[in-house]
């Protein structure tokens, strides 16, 4: 089966500083993939580069194919039929992505006519349908309001409505819930799950919140310093993270139950892309690092259980039992 989107060896450099070191990623039809990692690991840059949205000074190489058609290096007009139409993207801050001086109804209608060629009453009816679909109450009456008259959560819903206007095959959600309150965040995750069930579109969910990713996605890629270091299904990753970085991300999350112990941070910080070591970029922060990790880089290998992992000294496999169950059985 061919994939909806295939990214091969995607590299990005800003001012000859390489920030993305060859990303290979497939997105299947209707699939939901999470991209996690700390800030500055290249999660957003991957998709901005794939869609040609980076500024001109960025040097991008590699291949991005949608249903076999190459996107890299094609003419702008060809790219624009894909952007918004086949692949839509929503961002963290909805209020800065909406135009503050245009009524929201008009902004959605504009997207509908641009991508689907609908005009007049039909376009308006479709815009209203989208507003209903993303859960804006009383859409008819609020069609002519301005973005500032909506709350942050509703602005994000409006952004999703605009993103859905072109009936995309793939929705890329870049930290869509980070700026929202806890109860609104839960609503938004619910909405993303529901929309995917209704429309069958694939979703890429970029987030630093492993909890949120696990609600929405089936497969997760963990990124560190411009590379994918582990890729696995949600169940595999949560039962038994193998890369020490993935494990560290899990351990650092404070718990809502159990004892209130000291947290387990990952020491140090994400490396500066200008001064990357020759070896594994995570080695300076890694509890399992051996001397050779500093100058040899592990390749992203496929393991027997289907996951991809780039590490010489991974966390040992847990014999397919979740950690907590093992503890209970040990008592």
């Amino acid at each position: 089966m061919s994939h909806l989107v295939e990214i091969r060896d995607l590299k990005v450099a800003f001012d000859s500083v390489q920030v993305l070191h060859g990303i290979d990623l497939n997105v299947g039809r209707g699939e939901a993939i999470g991209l996690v990692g700390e800030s500055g690991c290249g999660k957003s840059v991957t998709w901005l580069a794939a869609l040609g949205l980076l500024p001109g000074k960025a040097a991008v190489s590699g291949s991005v194919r949608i249903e076999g058609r190459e996107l890299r290096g094609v003419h702008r007009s060809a790219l624009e039929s894909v952007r918004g139409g086949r692949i839509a993207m929503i961002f963290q801050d909805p209020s800065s992505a909406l135009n503050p001086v245009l009524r929201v109804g008009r902004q959605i209608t504009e997207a509908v006519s641009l991508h689907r060629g609908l005009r007049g009453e039909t376009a308006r009816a479709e815009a209203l349908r989208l507003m209903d679909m993303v859960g804006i109450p009383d859409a008819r009456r609020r069609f002519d309001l301005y973005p500032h008259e909506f709350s942050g959560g509703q602005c994000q819903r409006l952004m999703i409505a605009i993103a859905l206007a072109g009936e995309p095959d793939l929705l890329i959600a870049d930290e869509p819930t980070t700026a929202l309150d806890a109860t609104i965040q839960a609503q938004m995750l619910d909405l993303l799950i529901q929309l995917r069930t209704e429309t069958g579109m694939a979703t890429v969910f970029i987030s630093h919140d492993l909890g949120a990713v696990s609600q929405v996605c089936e497969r997760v890629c963990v990124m560190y310093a411009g590379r994918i270091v582990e890729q696995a299904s949600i169940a595999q990753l949560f039962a038994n993270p193998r890369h020490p970085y993935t494990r560290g991300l899990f351990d650092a999350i404070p718990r809502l139950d159990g004892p209130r112990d000291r947290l387990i941070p990952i020491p140090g910080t994400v490396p500066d892309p200008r001064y990357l070591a020759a070896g594994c970029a995570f080695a300076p922060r890694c509890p399992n690092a051996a001397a050779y990790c500093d100058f040899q880089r592990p390749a992203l290998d496929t393991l027997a259980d289907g996951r991809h992992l780039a590490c010489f000294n991974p966390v040992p496999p847990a014999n397919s039992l979740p950690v907590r169950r093992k503890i209970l059985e040990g008592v």
Partner: protein
Amino acid sequence: MVAPLIEAAALSRVYETRRGVFGKVSSVRAVDDVSLKVSPGETLGVVGESGSGKSTLGRLLLGIDPAQHGRVTFEGKPMPTFGTAEWRASRAKMQFIYQDPLAALDRRLTIATQIREPMDIHELFEGSARTDRVAALMAAVGLRHDQANRYPHELSGGQRQRAVIARALATRPKLIVCDEPVSALDVSIQAQVVNMLRDLQDELGLAMVFISHDLKVVRNVANRVAVMYLGRIVEEAPSDMIFASPRHPYTRALVSSVPVPGQPLKGRMILQGEPPNPADRPSGCAFHPRCPFAIELCRASVPELRPVEDLRAAACHLVDSANAPIAA
């Protein structure tokens, strides 16, 4: 019972806004009749959504923003009026840590200068002792001594927040109010800073008011937690208790909205509707339009915050003082 370090009684703060030059004045009740106590060495967590008044409450506690009603007592004495010499002197004993360290630091001064500044202003310690103390503070928050002459933009987000914390500790305060101190940091760095705050608190016996929307962090840091909704405290209890068995419907919704890695979203109590506009406060219990259990009484009368069991207070008509939880 230890005498509280800081005590607030019936604090209220109303902001007046006008739509346009000739528009009607509308008032926003940001904090409404809030009372709380913090003992020496204790951490009180304050949680709530945006617009719940938690940041305003922090500012009221330190007198940065004067309350219109109610009073704040620090070490048994009333808080001096904002802007007076006594108020400025009191700043040495209480400090504020903001969410955005880049905005809180002066971009043109090195971090060593900035950590030293509070000691210069309050004339604490003598000449070279100040320099020694800057070095000691930097070590305490985990900054390297070679970073002393760096400027804020040369540090990472986590390092900047450490510098802000070192500066807040310079005058040996007894109380620190932290407003979302780790919200802008990555989870791995967040854990570093949270551990550091806990260690410093143990060593120095600091009292903290920890304001955050992140329930997981608050649970880890705080001894006691107050949940705010539209300017009022709706539930207050020890940290372990409030997260293990929330009683107020809003607290229950908040706790259940936290995504736990590996647990599906099913069976959660997902609130419908938006957080209400503070300028257009619903009648009765402000939570009633979103509350799945609301009855007629909730629309009509505001529930008082009252003790419902040992160590726990809640403001809900439907939480009775017997131990029975409300119908789920």
